């Protein structure tokens, strides 16, 4: 009894202290009242047309840093993620995903199906808006792809894997779209160099706005809307690649274990 009282008291004290820090203490502001010089430098240059050699033309400092200021780092992080997916595909290379096709009568009950149908358009709209606003608001390509990849996951759980196959979303198609996304990222990396070669000037790899000695800059505006040069391209292509990369994984991981094991044993016995 005494121990339970102690636990209850400590929980109450934790909640009260957290509430005090979050509200009466003025939020977490006073703990970090100074903005560091490095952060100041980034915040004052991310969207400043008057500093054309330093700006990324994006109000969202995180996206500007991730895809512009330290773009190569992000590129190789993305490569690591896709190497992991390629590993999974290599393990499942001889597994036929269409074995065990049983029609569309599988899945959860009608209540869950209807709710999922309501959810799907919301999910798609949110994911696309995160991707297209990645250079304006928190989010970006990877987060949008992760949000979109919830959809094949939901469809597999609620309607069964064969429903996706009937929608023609097979491993091959998902791989093709993933490759389109990755090719788009690669093309965007070399886009400034191509433009520079045509015009006979210098350019850097993954360049967004113009730099010293490299006067090639991708357009920051279309009409009146801010697109931040290469950032929107990176976000959209990363969105495609992540969505379908995750879809491939979910499609492979949802194959029944027995089928996978049978087919893998069959492969071993042939050799």
């Amino acid at each position, binding site marked *: 009894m005494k121990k339970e009282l102690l636990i209850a008291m400590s929980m109450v004290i934790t909640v009260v202290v957290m509430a005090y820090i979050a509200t009466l203490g003025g939020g977490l502001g006073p703990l970090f009242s100074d903005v560091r010089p490095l952060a100041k430098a980034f915040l004052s240059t991310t969207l400043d047309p008057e500093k054309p050699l330093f700006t990324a033309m994006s109000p969202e400092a995180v996206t500007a840093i991730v895809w512009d200021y330290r773009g190569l780092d992000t590129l190789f992080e993305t490569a690591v993620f896709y190497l992991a997916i390629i590993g999974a595909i290599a393990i499942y290379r001889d597994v036929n995903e269409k074995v065990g096709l049983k029609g569309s009568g599988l899945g*959860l*009950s009608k*209540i*869950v199906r209807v*709710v*999922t149908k*309501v959810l799907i358009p*919301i999910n798609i709209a949110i994911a696309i808006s995160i991707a297209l606003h990645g250079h304006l608001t928190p989010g970006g390509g990877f987060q949008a792809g992760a949000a979109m990849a919830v959809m094949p996951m939901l469809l597999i759980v609620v309607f069964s894997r064969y429903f996706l196959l009937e929608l023609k979303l097979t491993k091959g198609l998902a791989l093709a779209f993933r490759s389109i996304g990755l090719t788009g990222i690669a093309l965007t990396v070399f886009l400034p160099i191509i433009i520079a070669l045509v015009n006979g000037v210098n350019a850097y790899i993954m360049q967004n706005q113009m730099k010293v000695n490299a006067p090639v800059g991708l357009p920051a505006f279309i009409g009146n809307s801010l697109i931040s040069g290469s950032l929107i391209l990176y976000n959209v292509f990363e969105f495609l690649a992540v969505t379908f990369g995750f879809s491939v994984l979910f499609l492979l991981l949802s194959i029944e274990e027995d089928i996978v094991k049978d087919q893998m044993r069959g492969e071993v016995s042939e050799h």
Partner: protein
Amino acid sequence: MIEYVMVVVGGALLLIGAVCDLIGALGMNRFPNFFVRLHAATVGVIGGAFYPLIGAALIAFGSEYLGTYRWFVGGCALVSAFLILILAPAGSHALARAAHKSKTAVVTPKVADHLEEDGGVK
């Protein structure tokens, strides 16, 4: 005046939410089997998340000093409330159905199990 009423009603909904959360937590700890514990969890979700979100939306709509942004805050709260309203029952339904169908959760102590009397989940 109407703003003041909205803030007061919103605060009352927040209070109801806190009470429902407490009841749900007690039920999760003290109920005897999976299905009634699931019931307690749903009390915590609908009572403890849906009502407070509506309350938060009302408070936001009533707080004029927030300016135009109060419509964004309140709208987000209403959309979240709607999503929770349709998702939480579907999720708990799927959980309960799966648990009953796979016989992982034993219904004991049992007063009545109409699903089993009808021949189980098909």
